[in-house]
């Protein structure tokens, strides 16, 4: 019973929580916080139970676990098909962890205009969308969850965001939607070109069996690529990201960076590559090139930023570039690196946004110039946290960012056989070299940021302002992430061990 219903319960529990929260009378609005905390904690524990169950053997062990397939719209053979495997499991659990920590964080701070009831119910709704995307094994269902995150995030940015929140929110929504409608069209095309189902497993088998013609694959891949690339975001579809991140409230930024971006890269691994393997081989050089451009370009843009949140937003562009580079190699090593990179980026950048959000809350400004340095003086612990996370983000080994990057580079050096046969070996090796150059630029802008923010002597007004250092609640929300940063970095098998078998299984269509 638990095996069949575990995912459903875990995915929809936050939705129930959101409904519960809306029932809280307005006068007792603060009560929303403990409720949200309880729900998200419970959901997180459930996700851990799923993780434990996956580890400990049946059901599944390897391959798909916790499967449930119920017909939904029989006319088009769309089903409610949920399952989980090693690719989605880390992301799935991470989404619950981050949401839970966000719920903790709201006890510390919630941006104007407050209204925890609305905020938290949106956050829980978002959680359902995020988690659902990672367990959906039906294209229609996947798309539903995929789109489900748009509305809550739109309101999160639009209501609780910074000065240009409305612009940023609309931009986020429409940009993402623009890509995803084409993806939907491509999904439907898969239905008609393939075995007449939206089931991902069946479509993967069809893809592996070569049921899709090359011309069709090219078109369908293009549609899916548009949807996913905007979400990742890949250069040059990234322009929504800085605005959304910059304006979003702290919790929104954390979830956006931590989970939402991963939905795009996850889609490549889950859908685009296995179902359309031939097109994947054709597109891989393009994706790889765009990824490397993103790495270098994101870093260069970071160097020019004067706004702390914007800087971190652009850093995401670069980090996701490494993830995409790993995926573009079409090898198990590359995809493993990509998933590792997603997890690493989710934890580290999530934590960065927490820290920067808290700094912004205290300084009432995101501008680096307004902060004027010396955070280590005014708030030693905050400065230390920021330094640590920034260093983690620039890919210092053995922290998690390093594994994602260097293994992706390795994969780029040895791309898939199919790419080698197509004559792209040297091309990918050049990409590897360029990607490696990106690492030094990344270090450059983060150190530049640290120098201007944490080091030096604080301006007098801030020294006298008596800023409060990291609060107990903040420690509560952050320490799991800090611990995980170290733990996953030191013991990368925590992630690689889960992903590796699943990745190999998924990439069989590519002959890997």
């Amino acid at each position, binding site marked *: 019973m638990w095996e069949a219903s575990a995912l459903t319960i875990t995915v929809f529990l936050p939705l129930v929580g959101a409904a519960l929260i809306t029932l809280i009378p307005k006068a007792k609005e603060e009560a929303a916080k403990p409720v949200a905390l309880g729900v998200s904690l419970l959901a997180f524990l459930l996700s851990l139970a799923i993780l434990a169950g996956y580890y400990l053997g049946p059901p599944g062990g390897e391959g798909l676990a916790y499967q449930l397939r119920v017909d*939904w719209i029989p006319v*088009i053979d769309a089903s409610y098909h949920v399952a989980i495997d090693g690719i989605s499991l880390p992301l799935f659990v991470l989404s619950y962890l981050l949401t839970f920590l966000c719920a903790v964080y709201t006890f510390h701070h919630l941006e104007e205009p407050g209204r925890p009831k609305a905020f938290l119910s949106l956050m829980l709704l978002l959680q359902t969308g995020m988690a659902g995307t990672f367990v959906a094994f039906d294209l229609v269902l996947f798309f539903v969850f995929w789109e489900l995150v748009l509305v809550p995030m*739109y309101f999160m940015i*639009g209501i609780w965001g910074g000065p240009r929140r409305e612009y940023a929110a609309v931009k986020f929504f429409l940009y993402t939607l*623009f890509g995803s409608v084409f993806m939907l*069209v491509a999904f*439907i095309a898969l239905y008609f070109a393939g075995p007449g189902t939206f089931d991902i497993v069946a479509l993967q088998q069809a893809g592996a069996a070569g049921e899709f013609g090359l011309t069709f694959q090219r078109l369908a891949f293009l549609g899916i690529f548009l949807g996913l690339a905007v979400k990742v975001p890949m250069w040059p579809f990234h322009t929504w990201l800085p605005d959304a991140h910059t304006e979003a409230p702290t919790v929104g930024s954390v979830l956006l960076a931590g989970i939402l971006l991963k939905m795009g890269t996850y889609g490549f691994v889950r859908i685009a590559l296995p179902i359309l393997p031939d097109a994947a081989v054709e597109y891989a050089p393009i994706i790889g090139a765009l990824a490397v451009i993103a790495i270098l370009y994101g870093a260069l843009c970071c160097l020019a930023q004067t706004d702390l949140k914007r800087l971190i937003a652009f850093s995401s562009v670069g980090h996701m570039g490494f993830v995409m580079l790993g995926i573009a190699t079409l090898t198990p090593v590359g995809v493993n690196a990509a998933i590792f990179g997603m997890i690493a980026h989710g934890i580290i950048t999530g934590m960065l946004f927490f820290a920067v959000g808290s700094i912004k809350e205290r300084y009432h400004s995101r501008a680096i110039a307004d902060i004027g340095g010396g955070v280590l003086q005014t708030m030693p612990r905050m400065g230390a946290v920021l330094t640590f996370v920034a260093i983690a983000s620039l890919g210092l080994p053995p922290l998690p960012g390093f594994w994602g990057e260097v293994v992706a580079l390795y994969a780029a050096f040895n791309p898939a056989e199919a790419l080698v046969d197509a004559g792209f070996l040297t091309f990918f090796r050049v990409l590897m070299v360029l990607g490696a150059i990106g690492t030094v630029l990344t270090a450059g802008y983060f150190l530049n940021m640290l120098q201007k923010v944490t080091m030096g002597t604080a301006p007098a007004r801030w020294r006298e302002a008596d800023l409060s250092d990291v609060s107990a609640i903040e420690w509560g929300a952050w320490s799991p992430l800090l611990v995980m940063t170290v733990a996953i970095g030191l013991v990368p098998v925590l992630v690689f061990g889960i992903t590796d078998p699943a990745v190999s299984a998924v990439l069989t269509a590519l002959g890997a």
Partner: protein
Amino acid sequence: MDVDQATQIDLFALAPELAVLGASLLVLLIELFLHGPRKRFVNPIAVLGVLVAFGFVVALWLDGAQRSSFGQMFVVDDYALAFKGFFLAVALFVLLISYRYFSEIRTFQGEYYFLMLAAFLGMMLMPSARDLVMLFIALELVSVPGFIMAGLRKFDLRSNEGAMKFFLFGVLSAAVLLFGLSIVYGFTGTTTLEGVAASLSAGEANPLLLAATLFVIAGFGFKVSAVPFHFWAPDTYEGAPIPVTAFLAVASKAAGFAGLLQVTFVAFEPLADVWAPVLGVVAILTMTLGNLTALTQTNMVRLLAYSSVAHAGYVLVPFAVVQPGDAALNADAFSAVLVYLFAYGAMNIGAFAVVIAVARRHPGRRVSDYAGLGQRSPGLAVALTTFLVSLGGIPPLVGFVAKLAVFFVAVEAGTTLGIVLAAAVAINTVISLVYYLRVARVVWMEEAPEPEPEPVQPGLALGFTVGGLAVVTVALFVLAPLLWGAADQAVLIASG
């Protein structure tokens, strides 16, 4: 078929229509004996009539047999029943949102409910009509009460003007339609839909006949407000009483589509390779123009009016992929239209219901009146957001199912036109969300003007409608198989 057959009457088959007819006459009669505020009690009578009719529809559905009356001119099958059920449900909600509105205006309540029921009588005839004459009668029965209802706010210049434009457009289209029908009759020698189809598939395509089919399609194009036959719609919607606008935007439009479905999928199906591409162009024009024009609207009703024009464009997409003789594809296209219409009905009436509720406080109906609604009336605001997002086609709402159905059939066709249409719908979806989100933004993110207006009190009937439709909008997403399955059951395709 001879004259004897043509005069055979199956009363059970006609029972829903008779119930509505009876209720409409009863309303007219009883209103004479009521005075002052008590006149509002005709509303429950109308509601009762609708419920009774609905009961008959259910009974006919349980009965299951295909029935006919007046020969084969009036047929009761799954298709007809599906539409009748839908129309009656719409009627119920339109009556519910009318109650407060008209009891506060206090004019012409008896006439209004009579006309409304008469119009719905016409609609119920529409899907059963399998004869050009019958179709024409049904269409006029929907239209003519509409002309009057649109002008019911007699002392409102806008209402007058809207009624006039509606009327002129209506009769012109009717004339064009009739001219087309007369030529079709002349070439085929019959007025039954199946007969026309049989004759068309047997004979040569004649330019004059093709032009005539176009005239017919144009006549329905007016009803569904497809570009370039849409001009009346925004002005009339804006001028008419809002419940009437809801009626026009949903029920009347759906009736137009019901007729168009029969004409195109049944009668003119052999000529599909000619008219389908034309409808494709019309669909793209309609959705694009509707959405782009809606972008800059500041009047909420006008915004919804253009939005409904755009939605007509989406509904036209499945028409555009019809191919003569491809029964499987045509059946899918047919059911896509039904799915879209049913979904559209739920969410659009809901949106209008909210507009009615807010219009009591803000008769100007400006979008800016909605500022701070999220604070003042969170329930209404949530419902409005739900309807708008659903209209935008975002899951997990029924609007997504509708869009999915349209995309599905466009891709299924696999033709260049199909892909172009899919792309057009995709881009238009994005455009449409600009203005849907604009409203949502005003509702949630803008501060209410000082002094803050009173919270909106929708009242029981309206509150029930808004809440009920919001639930339906969500539920029909989860229960999409019911919706889609029903639509699939109700497909009406020319045999062969």
